[in-house]
């Protein structure tokens, strides 16, 4: 300590590559910001927009009328329930085919995995719009689209769970001479079933949210009413609907989180 304490260590100089990457990202950000017409002033000017007045007051009589909002909202739920049952039901066997641990053979593994990756890369509402074109406007197309999408999400989550399952019960079952399916049924399924249920609840939450917006592209549910009122510039009704949607989604999420906590 006689030299006046330990010298502060020299700060390492940034490497050339780090500087290059930073500069590249900055340039990309600036370019992207211009492309999306970034305007920081929006954050304070947005409040002065006279259109806000059209959001108020909320016409509760109209919003709480059965045929205006409640019935389409029920339809939204029915789409979500059906899509969850179909999607998660199909996901159970496909996930087992898609996991390294339980796949029957390598071709099945590769084919299911790549098909599901492509399905998942197409956003949910793109599916909805495609199916609306194919089978006509309405809840039927929405149910189809959401089933496909929940299947894709579910197999991704669940097959990874199976990948991480304990392989020893499966090996034990195989050592007794069991065939493939019974071995999985006894050796793997019981250990991953709680997570399957938890993921299914999670997918149901996703589906509730997704089915609300499905109607924006003509696939049934509350979004249909939302889109119509938006086009009539009845933002007060839109706001009323959104409040209802918000409260319901919020409550469902809290319930679902509580159930999942108990499950896993």
């Amino acid at each position, binding site marked *: 300590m006689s030299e006046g304490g330990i010298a502060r260590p020299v700060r390492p100089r940034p490497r050339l590559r780090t500087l290059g990457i930073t500069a590249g990202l900055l340039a990309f950000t600036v370019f*992207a910001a211009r492309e999306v017409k970034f305007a920081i002033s929006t954050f304070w000017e947005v409040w002065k927009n006279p259109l806000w007045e059209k959001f108020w007051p909320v016409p509760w009589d109209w919003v709480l009328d059965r045929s205006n909002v409640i019935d389409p909202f029920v339809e939204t739920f*029915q789409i979500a329930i059906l899509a969850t049952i179909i999607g998660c039901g199909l996901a159970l066997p496909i996930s087992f085919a898609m996991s390294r641990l339980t796949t029957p053979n390598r071709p099945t593994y590769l084919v299911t995995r790549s098909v599901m990756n*492509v399905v998942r890369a197409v956003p949910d509402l*793109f599916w909805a719009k*495609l199916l609306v074109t194919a089978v006509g406007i309405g809840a039927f197309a929405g149910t189809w689209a959401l089933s496909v999408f929940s299947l894709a999400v579910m197999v991704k*989550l669940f097959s990874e769970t199976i990948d991480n399952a304990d392989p020893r019960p499966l090996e034990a079952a195989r050592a007794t001479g069991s065939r493939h399916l019974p071995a999985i049924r006894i050796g793997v399924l019981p250990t991953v079933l709680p997570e399957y249920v*938890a993921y299914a609840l999670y997918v149901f939450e996703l589906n509730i949210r997704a089915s609300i917006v499905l109607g924006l592209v003509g696939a049934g549910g509350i979004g249909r009413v939302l889109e119509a009122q938006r086009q009539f510039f009845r933002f007060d009704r839109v706001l009323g609907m959104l409040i209802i949607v918000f409260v319901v989604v919020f409550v469902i999420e809290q319930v679902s989180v509580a159930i999942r906590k108990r*499950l896993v």
Partner: protein
Amino acid sequence: MTATHTPSTVPRPSPPTGVRRRRALIALALVIGGAWSLTGLDITLARVLGAPADVWDIFKQLWPPAMDEALDRGVVGKVFESVYIAWIGTIIGAILSLPLAFLAATNVAPRWIRIPVRQLFNAIRAVPELIVAVIFIPITGLGPWAGTLAIGLHSVGTLGKWATEAIEGVDTGPLEAIEATGGRWVSGMRWGILPQIMPIVASFWLFRFEINVRASAVLGMIGAGGVGAELVSQLMFRNFPAVGAVLGITVLVVLTIDTMSATVRRRIIAGAARTSGPDLDADRNAEALADLTGFRR
């Protein structure tokens, strides 16, 4: 010794009755829910049987995709517009959510501010991006800026929640050291916590960016900029080869970004794990998944 040579004398144990009853209840709930939904949605057997043929009719026209036409119409530019929207939206979300996360973490923020900030995160997460965009479009006008704002605001919910949990998981040693030297609260956050959480938080940002690319592609369908508008108009004209091209380019870009982002995320996390042993990568992945799905193993 004889006992080991007499198999099948021990009866197979039956599952506890509680499990059976619960399974029956779940099955009953599923059947009732499914039946209720089926009747409500006017789904008839004829439609279900007819649908695969209809869908196949459309899907087989998607191939071969009309790539030349799509390139002429500037679809690639539109896809990149979606990417820009997602990028700027993610940055807005990151900038807004990081300070808020410090106010929401149990170990560094007082209770009176923690509860409202957490509820704000929950509230934001409950509203889909598209709905936020529906509100923003009349205010900012049609175009990419409305979509960017919607994505930015919506990202605050998830990014804030994840960052909060990262902060709650830190080692409090550095924080105590700074307090012991008389450092202020802000210094503690800046030097005691931020360096610890930055790798995981940066990887969360990238993860959210991947999600946002998909979300911004969808936003175009209601006029908030990006590739969605192109898909809608080509479907309206029933120009299916062009639809195939739009879908193909979108999927290609989405998958490329996913792969790139996953590689960078792995490097960020591996860099952070260098001192802490090889298992951390898997742990952090599990952590990210737990955050995404809202529960822990």
